[in-house]
């Protein structure tokens, strides 16, 4: 395995989700691994798009995600957790964000992956712009995402 050891990374190219999954699964005592892949859809609000452009705030993006990965470790008996977020131009079908959590049992792995994603959506500084049909548009934030974090409070 030649993956970086950092549990949170922002990358420009494709994400090797199989390698990331194998990395958390290899932690000692793991009985459950949950992964989440956020995938670029071919449409946004009914409009066909040819790509998304992901912009981020370097430094703060890693820090915000890292803070919530740390909180997940405090709330659940995790054995490993990794998050990789892609930036730049991303085409439909490609992975935008990948989260992998590992624990002895499934409850902690599921809860931690959802927790990390819910907070990533609302607090990590990334912005999506759509490309398609000759025009570009910034994606609006989703109110549902703000409500999702209420359950963790």
């Amino acid at each position: 395995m030649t993956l970086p050891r950092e549990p949170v990374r922002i990358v420009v190219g494709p994400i090797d989700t199989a390698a990331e999954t194998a990395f958390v699964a290899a932690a000692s005592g793991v009985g459950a691994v949950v992964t989440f892949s956020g995938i670029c859809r071919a449409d946004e609000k009914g409009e066909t798009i040819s790509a998304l452009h992901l912009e981020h705030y370097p430094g703060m993006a890693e820090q915000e995600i890292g803070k919530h990965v740390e909180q997940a470790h405090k709330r659940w008996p995790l054995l490993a957790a990794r998050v990789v977020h892609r930036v730049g131009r991303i085409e439909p079908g490609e992975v935008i964000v990948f989260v992998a959590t590992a624990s002895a049992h499934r409850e902690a792995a599921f809860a931690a992956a959802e927790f990390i994603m819910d907070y990533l959506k609302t607090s990590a500084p990334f912005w999506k712009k759509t490309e398609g049909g000759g025009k570009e548009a910034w994606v609006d934030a989703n109110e549902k995402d703000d409500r999702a974090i209420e359950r963790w409070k």
Partner: protein
Amino acid sequence: MKIIYFAWLRERLDKTEEEIELPSSVQTVGELMDWLKTRGEEYAYAFDNPKVIRAAIDKTHVRPDAKLAGAREIAFFPPMTGG
């Protein structure tokens, strides 16, 4: 003070960042937004609806009433849409 802009704020202002000397009357993030708005047409457009704009001081989320004292870097950006 260094100010950074992201997404459509960056586009409306046509700049990613700038160094600005603030008047001593500008003490909070909210006051900074109000003051920036007066700096020209593009600022008025960018900060047209300050309620939807988020801010961070030194890479930590802050509310409009956060004090600027001691800050090295202020960032303004729309609600986040990552993931």
